[in-house]
């Protein structure tokens, strides 16, 4: 019914059909689109950059809002000072108990005064930059001179000196 050459021809035809086909018309355009993804339009780049900047600002704002609150004097008195700031912990207790006079008026690290915020440019890249560090003024308490050491006067009994007698020298001999 089928000789070998017929069958080989049938096999080859079947194999050819299994690999028959052509790429669709849009194939080239898709390939070229994929090899040039880096050439984004300017508006798309600006949009991506502004979105990233807004995200960073939002994250910073959340961080500042969470960590920006000042501890109450009661909590300081019980804890001995805020635990998140070694600088505050190092301050004398008396100064802290009187209230944080400098911390109210002086911005913390990362915080900008309202006037500075208004002056900041709205450029996206500048918004990414951290605000300049503002360091609280150090309060140096005057060191009190130590009290003078007053030594108590020594009471010494007066010595009585008596002259030796003539027999005093032989009285101890056998």
């Amino acid at each position: 019914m089928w000789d070998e050459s017929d069958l080989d021809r049938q096999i080859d035809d079947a194999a050819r059909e299994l690999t028959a086909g052509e790429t669709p018309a849009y194939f080239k355009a898709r390939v070229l689109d994929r090899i040039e993804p880096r050439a984004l339009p300017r508006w798309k780049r600006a949009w991506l950059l502004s979105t990233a900047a807004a995200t960073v600002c939002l994250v910073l704002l959340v961080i500042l809002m969470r960590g920006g609150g000042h501890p109450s004097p009661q909590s300081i008195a019980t804890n001995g000072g805020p635990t998140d700031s070694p600088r505050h912990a190092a301050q004398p207790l008396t100064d802290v108990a009187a209230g944080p006079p400098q911390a109210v008026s002086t911005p913390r690290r990362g915080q900008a005064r309202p006037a500075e915020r208004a002056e900041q440019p709205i450029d996206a890249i500048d918004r990414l930059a951290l605000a300049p560090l503002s360091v609280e003024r150090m309060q140096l308490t005057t060191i009190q001179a130590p009290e003078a050491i007053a030594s108590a006067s020594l009471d010494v009994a007066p010595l009585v000196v008596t002259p030796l007698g003539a027999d005093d020298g032989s009285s101890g001999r056998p």
Partner: protein
Amino acid sequence: MSIDRVTDAELVERARHGDAAAFGELVDRHRNAVYRAALAALRSPADAEDAAQDAFVTAFRRLSSFRGEASFKTWLLTITWNQAINHRRSAARWWRVFVQPRAGEEGAAANEEEHSSADPSPEQALASSRMRSDIVREIRALPAKLRDALLLAQAGEYRYEDIGAMLNVPVGTIKWRVSEARRLIRRRLRARGYSDVG
């Protein structure tokens, strides 16, 4: 000079310097060869198209490593085959093959019907159609190395040297695999009742 007359090597050189049109011409020249190689490995036209796109994109990114020792087409087909084999191994593709209907098989069945309609008598048409179905089934049941060699050899796009470079084996091995694939199919057809075969 018209871009049609420019050689592949010149187009590669232009594409290296960022000429997208030059690379587009290379895509036009070799898209079908690349697609058919991917189809030989993957069976599914959709998967083959994805792999062919990946191959061109990979080739573009590796243009600087093309030394010109082989032809651009051979180099491109080697990349294509590697992409297709990676695709074939992916679990996602297996999911699509087993769960979704096979467009490739539907196309093959349509071709079979078209082929059988040209036969003169209904009996012969039926016999030819059955035999073609059995042959297709046996081709797909072949070991991957024999099946790949047979399909690539019969695709009509590649020289044995190209196939050898794609599969990374000597030309003699390719020829042996094609011959062995035919012999195995004949033997299995005989076992199916095609008694006069082989």
